[in-house]
């Protein structure tokens, strides 16, 4: 003979006792089943309920049958759900399964359950009775709460990481740009990711007399490793700038430090523009050294824009003897210069097209007269427009000489 998996005794024990086991009557099975049974009239009035469910509810049969309806057994939220969803859907479909609700016990406690219901109809097809099976869902609810707790925990952790990344980023950038006499300066940093420290950096600081030093660059890679390199670059440049008045000399110094620091390990280098600027009559003269960086945009008072190419300058830290190229630019009243990192000019504008330096130059021509803050605002609008195309961090630094009109005002 065979027996189903539901038979409790092992195969060998079944035999003569079987008829006795089958005395497990239908009534007993109904009353003491491991789930609740409930029969209600179409209006919800309870006409039959098993002992299991009564035990869960902590109520007596007489107090329930004919006196209460299914919604009376639910919490307030459950009652609303019953009226707005459960009952109408059941009426429409004739059956409903796996609805999660909460019972309210006589003691006032909540008891999470899953309800499955079917409608039986009379000969004319009119609904006669609703049979509902009630499953205990306390374990499932505990599991769901555990999942929610884990999710909250993960979200808190992510917030913490983002805060840490932001704080670390701030230590790599000047908190506010200093006031430079006779100049307007503005900067902006656009992080591509909230939880990764980017590899972009810039700074502006006083040198001897009325000369100011500044730099802007981009480290290969991202994350905590890039942050270590960025920190080293920033302090090396500021240190070298103090005693070496030649911008190319400052970059050579940085090259030596970076090359020696990371030689033989994961190669780390940066592209950078380093310069100094000093007042010159009614304008300013800027000396700019390039180490493989994207060309600065020079914006003239009349609205024309051009790229300041420093061709031949090599990236910093990759080669023992790198070559750097220097140019001098005079900024007249109303002129401005923009330094930027390649997050902007490598923004994707199509499957096979990227925003280029020339696009940026063309976009910025026509600002007359260009001011440092006006240029940063214009690029900001551009970044918003490029949106998700900007996959890398972007740093911007702009300097301008006030126009004669605004200078007089």
């Amino acid at each position: 003979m065979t027996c189903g998996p539901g038979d409790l005794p092992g195969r060998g024990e079944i035999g003569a006792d079987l008829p006795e086991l089958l005395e497990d009557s239908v009534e007993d099975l109904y009353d003491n089943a491991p789930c609740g049974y409930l029969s209600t009239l179409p209006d919800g009035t309870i006409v039959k309920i098993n002992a299991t469910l009564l035990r869960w509810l902590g109520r007596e049969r007489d107090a329930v049958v004919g006196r209460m309806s299914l919604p009376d057994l639910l919490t307030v939220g459950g009652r609303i759900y019953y009226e707005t969803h459960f009952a109408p859907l059941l009426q429409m479909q004739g059956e409903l399964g796996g609805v999660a609700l909460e019972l309210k016990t006589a003691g006032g406690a909540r008891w999470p359950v899953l309800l499955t219901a079917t409608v039986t109809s009379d000969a004319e097809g009119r609904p006669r009775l609703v049979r509902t099976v009630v499953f205990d869902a306390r374990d499932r609810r505990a599991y769901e709460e555990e999942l929610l707790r884990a999710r909250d925990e993960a979200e808190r952790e992510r917030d913490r990481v983002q805060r840490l990344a932001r704080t670390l980023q701030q230590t790599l950038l000047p908190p506010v740009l200093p006031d430079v006499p006779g100049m307007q300066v503005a900067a902006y940093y656009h992080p591509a990711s909230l939880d990764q420290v980017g590899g972009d950096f810039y700074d502006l600081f006083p040198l001897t007399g009325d000369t100011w030093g500044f730099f802007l660059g981009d480290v290969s890679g991202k994350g905590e490793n890039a942050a270590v390199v960025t920190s080293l670059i920033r302090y090396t440049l500021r240190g070298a700038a103090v005693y070496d008045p030649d911008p190319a000399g400052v970059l050579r110094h940085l090259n030596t430090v970076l090359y020696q620091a990371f030689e033989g390990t994961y190669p780390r280098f940066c592209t950078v523009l380093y310069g100094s600027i000093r007042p010159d009559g009614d304008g300013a003269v800027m000396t700019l050294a390039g180490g493989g960086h994207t060309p600065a945009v020079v914006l003239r008072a009349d609205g024309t824009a051009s790229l300041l190419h420093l061709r031949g300058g090599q990236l910093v830290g990759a080669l023992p003897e790198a070559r750097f190229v220097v140019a001098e630019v005079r900024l007249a009243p109303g002129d401005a210069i923009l330094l930027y990192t390649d997050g902007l000019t490598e923004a994707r504008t199509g499957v096979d097209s990227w925003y280029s330096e020339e696009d940026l130059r063309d976009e910025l021509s026509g600002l007359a007269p260009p001011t440092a803050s006006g240029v940063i605002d214009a690029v900001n609008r551009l970044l918003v427009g490029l949106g998700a195309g900007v996959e890398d961090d972007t740093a911007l630094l702009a300097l301008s000489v006030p126009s004669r009109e605004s200078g007089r005002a």
Partner: protein
Amino acid sequence: MSDDAFSVSLHQVETGVVLAVRGDLDAYTSPQLLEKIGGISLVRGQVLVVDLSGTRFCDSSGISAFVAARNLAATAHAGIVLAAVPRQILRVLGMVGLDSLFTISPSVQDALSAHRAGSG
């Protein structure tokens, strides 16, 4: 967005190694290329050909992988050729001043036959 399409494969050839890159080279994909480069062994007189025909884009972190490849080849006294370099990458190489560091070849076949002619 480009990450899942990225792959690097190595082929040993008689005169050296061909490293084929497929997909964009950026801060997220370049470490995979660097790792592959770390596993390449070259002997004196061989050539490392980096096949870029399956690539369209490279940023400064991709350049770091090229420099690593170049350093590896230099240490082994082997040559290095970038083959089928797309315009955008040529432009970036020029921008960072490294175009003079590499031999540029129109295709892998050209690179390998030029190397044979040069060493033979």
